[in-house]
Every structure is written in C-alpha cells, then in structure tokens.
C-alpha cells in the first residue's frame, strides 16, 4: 500500500442533466488520515461518495484508491474499502451476528475464523449482548455501530463513511468519533467521511469544504480557521443593510449582511465593537463575537450561511 495516497481524486466531474454536482474536483488523502468532506446537502458530497464507493461511474475524471481506479478497476477497489452508509445497510430480519457473518462471506471469509473475528469486533464495539438480537430491535446509535463493525470485518485499508453522525444524539456522535480515532490509531485505517456537522469536521485531521460541486477550501481545521484574519463579530440590528453601508463609509470596514445580521471579520474585535456602539447609538440591538469556526470559513468562501445553504438544496435527496 505504500507509494500511493489512500485516495487521489483527479478532475472528478458529474452532472444530473443541467445540474452540475461535481465541477471537476481534485484532492488527495494520505494513508492514515482522517479526512472530512464538509458541505451542505446538495453540495456534491453524496455524488462524490457514490463514485468513491464504486456505486456510480463519474462522467469525467477519476478517483484512485491506493492507486486503483474506481472507474476501470472497481472490483479491486471494492476489496480495499469498508463502507458505512448513512442508512445502515443491515437486514432488519437478521440478528447482529448474522448480518456480520453474511458480510464476511462477501469477502471470502468463512467458518470458525469468520465467527471469531465477527465476535471480536462486536465485543470491541460493546455489542456482545446484542449479537443475537434482530437488528430491527436496535436503536439508531447501535445500528450505526453494527454498520461500522460490519464495514471493518474484512479489515479495509480505507473506510468511507457517509454522514455517519446524522440521526445520532450528541453523546452517540462523540462516541462514534472516538471509535474512528481509535480505529485509525490502532489499525492505521484511513478514514474519509462526509458531514454537515462543523464539530465533526473539526475533529478530523484535514477538512475539504465542498459547495456547489467545488472544493472551496482544504486544509487542517486550525489552518482554515486561522486563514480568517482575527475574530468574527455578528451584529443584530433592525436595519442591517444601512448599518452595513455606514460601517463601510465610516471605518472602511467590509461588513456584509449574512442571514439578516451584519458580519465582520476583524482583529481586536472588542475594541471595534466599542467604537461601533459609540458611533451609531441605538442601532445595535445585540452583538456576539468569537474566534472563527469552520462555518465562518464556509461563509467567507461562499458568501452564504451554511444553514441557509442547507435549506436551499433538497434536490440531492431525490437524486440520492
């Protein structure tokens, strides 16, 4: 496996009719990395995931997993990847262990050894007591855990997870993240996951922010956040447009309106706020300021609020 990056995406392009889902994107993930693809639904994540897991052929470009093309060498790619689907791919009428055993067979595992390895994983994921239960009786969090255990059974070198945190409560989300960390540390598994949760992206080694089919930013979460100069100030006011203009006139400060509030990126934000409140008495209803988050990176690169972007693109759910 040495010599090749775990994943190399090269000029990947795909459209559904007129809608460009992937506009020719490039990025690499090194072996042993935890890499998040952060973006709103409809941004191209699901399409990318389907192509990387060999479920769909791209219209242009290629992706290589440990050097093998998902387009021309899908069978070899499938031996190397473990996949965690957003909707766990479990048979509800089979028990946890039966689901594992069936999955092992698909990879040529069998007999006593398969059973032992399946049980070892179930024990490791705290599922031993539920091994004999039908998966339809498990909670969403537990099902996700079975899905992860199942994906790891053939010991893949690359784990691809589609929105693994969706539908989990915050506790289960943290736990799932810890399991991925442990997995990488103990087995050296490379992990690529898609997410629309900032915190989840924050916990990974590197993040690619994807929007409208483009990778708009890529790097370590810390670097991305530092790329924004200073701090972020959000001002709530009844007249955001006029305040935005006034700030520009008076202080030469860019202050775009995002989602009905005035948003400013500036170093030494506390001093600036004091000046604003003095200069325009009565116009500031409330303000907040803080260190930049990945959401701020998204806003800076796209000019849109992440949640606004979330609401605007339901089309990919139909396509997916």
């Amino acid at each position: 496996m040495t010599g090749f990056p775990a994943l190399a995406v090269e000029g990947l392009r795909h459209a559904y009719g007129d809608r460009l889902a992937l506009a020719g994107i490039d990025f690499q993930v090194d072996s042993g990395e935890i890499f998040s693809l952060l973006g709103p639904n409809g941004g191209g994540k699901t399409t990318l995931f389907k192509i990387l897991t060999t479920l769909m052929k791209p219209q242009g470009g290629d992706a290589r997993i440990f050097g093998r093309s998902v387009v021309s060498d899908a069978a070899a790619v499938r031996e190397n990847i473990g996949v965690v689907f957003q909707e766990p791919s479990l048979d509800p009428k089979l028990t946890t262990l039966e689901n594992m055993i069936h999955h092992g067979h698909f990879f040529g595992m069998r007999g006593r050894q398969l059973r032992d390895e399946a049980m070892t994983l179930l024990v490791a994921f705290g599922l031993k007591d539920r091994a004999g239960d039908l998966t339809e009786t498990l909670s969403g969090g537990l099902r996700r855990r079975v899905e992860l255990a199942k994906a790891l059974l053939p010991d893949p070198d690359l784990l691809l997870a589609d929105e693994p945190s969706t539908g989990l409560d915050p506790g289960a989300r943290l736990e799932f993240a810890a399991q991925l960390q442990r997995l990488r540390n103990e087995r050296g598994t490379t992990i690529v996951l898609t997410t629309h949760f900032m915190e989840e992206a924050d916990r990974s080694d590197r993040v690619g922010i994807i929007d409208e089919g483009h990778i708009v930013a890529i790097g370590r979460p810390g670097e991305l956040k530092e790329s924004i100069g200073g701090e972020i100030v959000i001002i709530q006011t009844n007249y955001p447009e006029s305040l935005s203009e006034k700030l520009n006139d008076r202080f030469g400060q860019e202050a775009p309106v995002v989602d009905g509030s005035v948003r400013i990126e500036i170093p030494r934000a506390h001093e600036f706020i004091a000046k604003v409140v003095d200069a325009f008495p009565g116009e500031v209803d409330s303000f907040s300021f803080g260190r930049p988050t990945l959401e701020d990176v998204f806003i800076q690169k796209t000019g849109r609020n992440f949640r606004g972007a979330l609401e605007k693109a339901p089309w990919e759910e139909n396509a997916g």
Partner: protein
Amino acid sequence: MIVFFLSAGTLWKREIVRFLRQRSRIIGALGQPILFWLLLGSGFGESFRPSGAGASAGYLEYFYPGILVMVILFTAIFATIAVVEDRKERFLQAVLVAPVPRSAIVLGQALGATTLALLQGFILLAAAPWTGVPLTAASVAAAAGVMFLIGFSLTSLGLAIAWRMESTQGFHSIMNLVLLPLWILSGAVFPAASAHPWLGWVMKINPLTYGVAWLRRALYAAQPEVVADLPGVGISLAITIVFGSISFFMAVRHAEKSEG
C-alpha cells in the same frame, strides 16, 4: 470462485431465514394457493368444461397443475419485490460495494426464491390424491425438477424487472401487466384448444405454456393419454431452459448497471 459460491450461498440462506421469520408470509404462502384452488376450481367447475387436455377430468383436476404454477409465480413475485425493498433498506448497497460478482448476487436471490417456491409447491403436491392426479414417486420427482426450472425462470424474470425498478409500486404495475397474463395464458387456467384462435397463438408463443405443459406431462407420467395433445417434453424442456437463461442474464445485466 470461493467468493462467488460463498456469496450466492449466503444470499440464498438469507432469503430462507427471512421467510421463516415472517409468520404472515408463511401463512399467506401456504393458505393462498389452497384457497385459490378450492374457490376458483369449484366456482368454475360447474360452468366451465375444458375441452382438449383434461376434458375427461373435472375442472378442479385440470386447474391443479395451474395452481402449482401460480404458487411458484406468486412466490417468485414476492421474492423479487424483496429486492426492491432491500434497496430501500440499503442491505443491497453493502453487497454492491463488496467484491461480489453481480451474477453471484442474482444467483443467490434466484435460488432463494426458487427454493421457497418449491417448498410451497411440495405442500400443494401433497393435496394431489384428492384431485385425481395419479401421483407416483417418479412423477413427483419429475414434477419437482420441472417446478425448479419454472421457478428459476420466473424468479429470474421477476429479478430482471426488479433490478430496474425504483419503487415497489412500479413493480406491481409491471407484474399485473406482464407476469399475471403470462400465467393466465399458459394453459394453466384454460387449455389452448378451448381458447379463441388468436388467443391460442398468444399461448403458443408464451414460454410459460411449455413449462406448464411439461409439468402436466410430469404429473400424468402414469397416464400419458390424458396429456397427449400438449407440447412434447423435448421442446418444453428446451424452451423453458432458454427462457430461464435469457431471464437470468437479463437480471445480471440490470444488476451490473444498478447503482443500488
């Protein structure tokens, strides 16, 4: 090769286990054919005198092999609806991203459904003594073989359709449009000889006609004179095998194109 057989085998077993765990499916699978046979057979029996094959027998007896094929057809339909549901439940997606040949997936599904169809067929076969069909050990063995091939063909046809379908609703409409007429016009319900000439032609080009004829011949192995004017064993065997193979390869092709 190991992966091929392990995968087909494990999918076959899964179909059986799923069936046995759903009590409503078991009850429906067993109750429906017997109910249909009794209701339709006795209802038509008074007003409908088949000519040609089985003319000497009552309609209950004539209809009996037809019901056997219907059981197989319904099981095949049911099992293939499961493919569409699998895609909704996402189980199949995990199989599609595993290094499993698509042909192994389709083979496992087809064999699983065929086994269930055979299981039901055997239960109905146990009712043969009440119908006047003269069963012997040899005719049961022959009938089992024929039912297996018919089952495999119909299941493969169902799978070929199901692998293209996005919803179970779509599958139902295709089923009503294709699969049920296939059965009705196979000589299972009425003999070709008693049908309008153009219908007789449709029945002649219906591949299932030959499966049904072959099944009748197998069941009446002890009284070949009853089924003398049906298509011969040779042509029936050939057409059923060709029909099954084409359906199977169509299903594999559609599975290869599927995105899950």
